[in-house]
């Protein structure tokens, strides 16, 4: 791509330019959903109990309150999966006689202000006949059914076993078992959910402004549920204050806001508060994973057996369905290791808890934690060091087809491991670790090697059997008569810096500065249909489509220049906002060519179409980026507190478009992963009451808890994508929990205790140490 600006001396791709979206955001001029005025504000009355039958809903006299009774014509949210014994279950927009989790919407109270709406909601009398709730996924079979469609509460149930598995298993030198438990989390975006819908009396259209990662699919889904033409609904995602997956599922609240605007021909708004977000926005990662690894005497993993039990909450999220966690776990548990024989059972069970949805990395932070703990445990049992066992098992021949049939493109699993090892200085760490143990201080070192499947298109999604199969992205690129450029994209960035990185890609193709390129997204009236930002896909797929469109527009600019400069196309060079005949001073401003393309088309004698708009679409097979994460921790043995002292990540995401943005993605992911490993936990009591409903109880890490992070990049340009880039949006969050957990276990190794439950809270660490001490005392 550097050829694109030959002659200008400048390429934009690869440079850490400042983010074009930031000036507005950091000066308080961002535009968020909650900034919009509305005639009516909505407050939801939410179920105070986890399970029961609604006996009475009595609003205060004269109040504007909506219940399920008014929503007869609105369909429930019912995503579909055609594989893996999936049982379709529906989620009503407002609870229809039955409540299935604490925080479920029962009614909507409406008033002229948020304060008054909350007063009304407070005064709505609700009577519920409580029934015994099902909270823990392990109790699914012995509990009453949440949904008649699934008497055993199993909503998805998948099995796989490779043909020679049993033989390989019998020949194993040693079987190592690891039982991992990941507690429930909330993605906790800075901006909670919010929606605003307005009715336009002139056109009869509804404009729904909402904080979402997928505006187009939101439009499709709501139009389907409300039985209206999509063209009558415009969905806008303005500035979105973080999503992390929590905003890629369709919330029933948004459906209701759109319905209210349509039904009452006015404007309605709802802004979720933090408590609602913690109890009733989507949760994730509530899983049990048991792994049995069959190793040979050299520490080579020859067969792997997995049992995945995912708590999917009360309903199935749209569009991915609740299969997203268990099925991703099944597909990707073997990770970056060469293991030929694999068996897995993956179940997703419904419980009386908040529904599960994707959260950065989806299942991979959990499966990577389980697998990487297994590798460390096997290393100890086989007397190998944790680095060597990874060296012996990481794949190094490409393309590599996994036991599950996934094709791994070329990556640098071993190279990133060695790069990280080099920067850790393991012998020095071990010496310090030994010395400090004598002072009662316990340091730990933890490694994690992993792959991150990114940028996968529709064929990869099709393997899941979803009724809705995402994958491709489309863009439209227009240079206007002033020579400025508008790029309209179907995907929907919300913090990833795509307005900057896509502009860098276009700038190199067209020979203009990125500041002349505006990226338009998040408005179904203004951008082509697209899937949105999730699954580490937008830069690769939307960026790939952008490259294609930009190459077409570049060709057109060159064609215009050949006419105006009377030169051969191969002699035209674009750069510094001009088209120049190579080796001469004959040159024309690109802006002048743009004006000609609109206003002087007669000159081109019909050989060049008017206007300067090109489209691009891209649907790649997918590519795996990879990294090695290393955590150094100190465990306070007396209190159980873990302090992460330092974090090193060596990663390879192919070509890096903007190094500052890439580093920011990795830093943020690692911070979330540290929270995952030691702090964050959504906790229910046995009655289904949620005990972590404020940020005093659910504990995301703060700057104090995040150590210095040292990043190293191997920038191996891939042939798997047209940008030679791979995604990296989730990797930080995928690898860091495992690295921290391995480091904690390394620190605790003198005590002979293991912590295989996340988060590794101080209470859990002390409990394990105390149990061990009591065992020793008894012995």
């Amino acid at each position, binding site marked *: 791509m550097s050829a694109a600006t030959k002659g200008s001396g400048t390429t934009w791709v690869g440079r850490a330019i400042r983010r074009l979206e930031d000036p507005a955001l950091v000066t308080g001029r961002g535009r968020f959903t909650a900034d919009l005025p509305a005639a009516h504000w909505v407050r939801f009355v939410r179920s105070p109990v986890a399970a029961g039958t609604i006996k009475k809903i009595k609003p205060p006299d004269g109040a504007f309150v909506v219940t399920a009774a008014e929503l007869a014509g609105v369909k429930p949210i019912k995503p579909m999966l055609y594989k893996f014994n999936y049982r379709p279950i529906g989620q009503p927009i407002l609870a229809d006689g039955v409540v299935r989790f604490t925080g479920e919407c029962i009614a909507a109270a409406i008033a002229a202000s*948020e*304060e008054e709406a*909350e*007063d009304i909601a*407070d005064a709505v009398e609700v009577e519920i006949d409580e029934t015994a709730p099902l909270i823990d996924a392990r109790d699914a079979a012995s509990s009453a059914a949440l949904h008649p469609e699934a008497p055993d509460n199993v909503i998805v149930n998948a099995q796989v076993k490779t043909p020679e598995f049993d033989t390989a298993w019998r020949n194993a030198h040693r079987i190592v078992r690891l039982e991992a438990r990941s507690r429930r989390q909330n993605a906790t975006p800075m901006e909670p959910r919010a929606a605003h819908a307005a009715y336009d009396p002139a056109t009869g259209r509804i404009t729904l402004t909402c904080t979402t990662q997928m505006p187009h699919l939101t439009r499709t889904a709501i139009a389907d549920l409300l039985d209206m033409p999509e063209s009558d609904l415009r969905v806008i995602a303005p500035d979105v204050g973080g999503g992390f997956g929590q905003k890629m599922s369709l919330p029933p609240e948004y459906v209701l806001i759109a319905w209210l605007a349509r039904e009452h021909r006015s404007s309605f708004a709802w802004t979720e*508060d*933090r*408590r609602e977000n913690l109890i009733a926005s989507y949760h994730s990662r509530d899983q049990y994973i048991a792994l049995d690894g069959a190793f040979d005497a050299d520490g080579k993993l020859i067969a792997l057996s997995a049992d995945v039990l995912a708590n999917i909450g009360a309903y199935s999220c749209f569009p991915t369905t609740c299969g997203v966690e268990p099925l991703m776990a099944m597909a990707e548990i073997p990770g970056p290791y060469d293991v030929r024989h694999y068996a897995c059972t993956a179940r997703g069970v419904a419980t009386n808890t908040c529904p599960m949805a994707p959260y950065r990395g989806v299942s991979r932070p959990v499966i990577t934690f389980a697998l990487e703990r297994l590798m460390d445990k096997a290393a100890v049992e086989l007397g190998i060091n944790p680095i060597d066992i990874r060296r012996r098992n990481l794949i190094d021949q490409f393309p590599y087809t996994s036991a599950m049939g996934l094709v791994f493109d070329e990556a640098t699993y071993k190279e990133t491991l060695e790069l990280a090892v080099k920067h850790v200085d393991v012998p020095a760490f071990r010496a310090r670790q030994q010395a400090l143990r004598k002072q009662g201080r316990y340091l730990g070192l933890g490694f994690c090697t992993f792959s991150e499947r990114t940028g996968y298109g529709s064929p990869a999604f099709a393997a899941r059997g979803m009724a809705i199969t995402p994958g491709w992205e489309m863009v439209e690129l227009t240079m206007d008569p002033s020579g400025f450029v508008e790029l309209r994209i179907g995907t929907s960035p919300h913090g990833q810096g795509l307005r900057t990185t896509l502009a860098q890609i276009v700038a190199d193709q067209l020979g203009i500065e990125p500041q002349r390129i505006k990226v338009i997204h998040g408005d179904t009236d203004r951008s082509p249909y697209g899937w949105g930002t999730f699954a580490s896909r937008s830069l690769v797929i939307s960026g790939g489509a952008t490259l294609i469109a930009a190459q077409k527009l570049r060709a057109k600019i060159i064609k215009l220049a050949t006419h105006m400069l009377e030169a051969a196309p191969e002699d035209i060079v674009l750069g510094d906002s001009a088209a120049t005949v190579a080796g001469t001073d004959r040159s024309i401003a690109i802006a002048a060519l743009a004006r000609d393309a609109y206003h002087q088309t007669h000159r081109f004698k019909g050989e060049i179409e008017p206007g300067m708009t090109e489209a691009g679409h891209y649907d790649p097979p997918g590519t795996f980026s990879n990294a090695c994460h290393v955590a150094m921790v100190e465990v*306070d043995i*007396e*209190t*159980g*507190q873990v302090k992460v002292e330092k974090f090193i990540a060596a990663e390879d995401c192919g070509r890096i478009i903007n190094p500052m943005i890439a580093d920011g993605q990795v830093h943020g992911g690692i911070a979330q992963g540290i929270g995952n490993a030691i*702090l964050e936990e959504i*906790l229910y*009591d046995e009655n289904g009451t949620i*005990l972590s409903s*404020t940020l*005093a109880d659910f*504990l995301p*890490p*703060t700057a*104090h*808890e995040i150590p210095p992070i040292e990043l190293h990049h191997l920038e191996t340009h891939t042939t798997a994508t047209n940008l030679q880039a791979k995604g990296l949006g989730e990797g930080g969050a995928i690898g860091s929990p495992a690295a921290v957990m391995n480091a904690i276990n390394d620190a605790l190794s003198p005590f002979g205790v293991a912590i295989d439950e996340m988060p590794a*809270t*101080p*209470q859990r660490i*002390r*409990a394990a140490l*105390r149990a061990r001490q009591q065992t020793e005392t008894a012995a």
Partner: protein
Amino acid sequence: MKPAPFVRHTPRTLDEALAILAEVAPQDGRVLAGGQSLVPIMAFRMARPAHLVDINEVAGLDKLIVENGMLIVGARVRHGAFHKPVEPGPLGALLASVVHNIAHYPIRMRGTMCGSLAHADPSSEWCLTAATLDAELVARRKGGERIIPARDFFEGLMSTALKEDELLAEARYMLLPAGTKFGFNEFSRRAGDFAMSAALATYRIVDGRIADARVGVGGAEASPRRIPEAEAALNGQMPGDAAFRAAAEAASAAIDPLEDIQTTGEYRRDLVRAVVRRALEASVK
């Protein structure tokens, strides 16, 4: 997360404030100072005072002086006032070392010491300080005043001896004798979080041995208090690891620990053992 409706009163004098409080107290009237505890629980509608008597403009309540050997802290004095020592002796240094553990900077610039004392969160650093140093708490009501010793002031979780029409107008601390050693330590999940256990210790050295030991523990029981068993383990001993460990062990055994779904009594005792020893170690650093 919007509070239930309430009426806010903004008196300018203490008499006016006490008169309003007397009038609205029966209708769940509450005093508003920095609002760092009260306002969040109102936002959750866990507290629904019909009236707030906002004392932020009441003249004279910003008193922060030493008088007759006592430090007097008025009801409007913010935590941040203690960032630097408020008096040159050990008490000023002690308060400055404790204050940095209270939440985060913006909260310290709004919240008040007397507000924390009246709120009586068991994990409050100031409640622990008042209990350990036997502070005197001055309660004013319309036409009356009484002085409540700290040991009688804290009555349980978020519960004090203050009557509903009383305003905690001042906290008073005896200055500490020159040479008083002190140490503070607390444990929380994250920096700035509520302490899951905290300890404050003071003592003097007389003839090379510990005298007048005070060991207070907060966050571990319903209210912070001095732990006589730990103090007994220190008095007359040489300061050092053996005495500190003995005191920590005694405190750990003496408490009646708060428990919740995550935190067992055993774990709370672990924390008390750790924070008491670390507070004592800090006293000799």
